[in-house]
């Protein structure tokens, strides 16, 4: 897997976008597998059914950090429906690919985003 990261991956790893916590997030999604060494939390703030703000915190390899960064970029400003349609493959493609061995373990960002959105929708449901 060495040297198989695209420049894009390394760019996002070196200078991740939207990194950190949103203290007053509307919802949070956490996924991961401690055995693989990847844990990811996505924080979202929603306004007009759109992702108004998004941040991440990630413990994991360069791929995990890059996918986290990428998903925040992809999701920002999207409607919840649009955001739910972003797939793992979309993330990998936007990063110009990931080493195949990393596709399974480290490409969790889409899952974390979906989880955050679902948590948000459930909360809204309960509030009705």
């Amino acid at each position, binding site marked *: *897997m*060495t040297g198989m990261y695209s420049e894009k991956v*390394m760019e996002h*790893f*070196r200078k*991740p976008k939207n*990194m*950190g*916590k949103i203290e007053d997030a509307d919802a949070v999604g*956490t996924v991961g597998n*401690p*055995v*693989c*060494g*990847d*844990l*990811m*939390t996505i924080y979202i703030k929603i306004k007009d059914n759109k992702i108004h703000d998004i941040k*991440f*915190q*990630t*413990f*994991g*390899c*360069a791929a*995990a*950090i890059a996918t986290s960064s990428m998903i925040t970029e992809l999701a920002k400003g999207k409607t919840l429906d649009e955001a739910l349609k972003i797939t793992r493959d979309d993330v990998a493609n936007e990063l110009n690919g990931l080493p195949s*061995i*990393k596709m399974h*373990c480290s490409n969790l960002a889409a899952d974390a985003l979906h989880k955050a959105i679902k948590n948000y929708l459930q909360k809204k449901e309960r509030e009705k």
Partner: protein
Amino acid sequence: MKKIYLDHAATTPVDKKVVEAMLPYFYKHYGNASSLHSFGRKAHEALEESRKKVASLLNVKEKEIIFTAGGTESDNIAIKGIAYKNREKRYTKGPHIITSSIEHPAVLETCKHLEMQGYKIKYLPVDKHGIINIDELEKTISKNTFLITIMYANNEIGTIQPIKEIGQIARENNIIFHTDAVQAIGKTPIDPNKINVDLLSISSHKMYGPKGVGALYIREGLSIQPIIHGGGHERGIRSSTENIPGIVGLGKACELAKKRMEKDTKHIKKMRDKLIKNILEIEESYLNGHPQKRLINNAHFRFTGIEGESLLLSLDDKGIAASTGSACSSKKLQPSHVLIAIGLTPIEAHGSLRLSLGRENTQEEISYVTDVLPEIINRLRKISPLWKKQE
């Protein structure tokens, strides 16, 4: 950018003197050591001269050394070679082979392969520093135990086993004792006769020699079944046209190791101790492995909230080459079996960093590393959901 290589446990640069010694055997004395003519004789002389040098480093007889294609092959030949000689024992109560749970994959996977063939293997646990329990070893021995294979020093955390005591127990119980000394050789004086070792594995590329060559010490009189069959080279134990340039390189590397050991040890240990001292000043950083019983060039840390690969690549961006454990393991995405065996959680294991020093490292390099590392750790902790202290 100047590069700083701190991954000597993965592999070392080849010493200039070693390459110089090898070169004539590519261009000029390129004969096959089995050939009768002058080219062959030159090659044969070089082969035996190198054997002498390896034997001299270990203080053993020349005929007790055979050349192999590396540490992995040496381990495989030693363990399978003895196991296949004791094939019928498989049908008895075990354990037939005793090893440790922190061996290199060259030993572990070989043992697992033998397990599938019916051999019973005991994988001894280790304590939090990575040392096996001698009492437990003694208790584990059965009358059908024919082989103990326990590494001299661990390739990840650098812990040195009580080899002499193990050898004593093996001898008293009439059990053959193999040790994988790939990481230890050249860093500490080793004499198989003084520590009752019957078989000992060496790999050239961990001691400033070329890759793809190794050696196996086999105590005189011990009989081994080959795993590679062919022209009968190396007393029939390892057939194939001898890799003369490689073997000359290993021979030279052994000669240098012997000559330089004292000086190198002083130099490397001083840098290593400074490295450990300075790095442990980082908040929530810990040393893995034994505080004293460790290889002179090994420094192995763990940082709360940090994942190893990110740390490595960040160091790499600063020109520093390091490792999270055995380089091999990085393919598997599994936390190191060694770190799990010493009791770390998977998350802790993933947060580990191995810095392994070599003879050409300098104090300046070490200072640079200890300057740069805290920033990197800070940055990664900022991204990390596992670093609670950030607010």
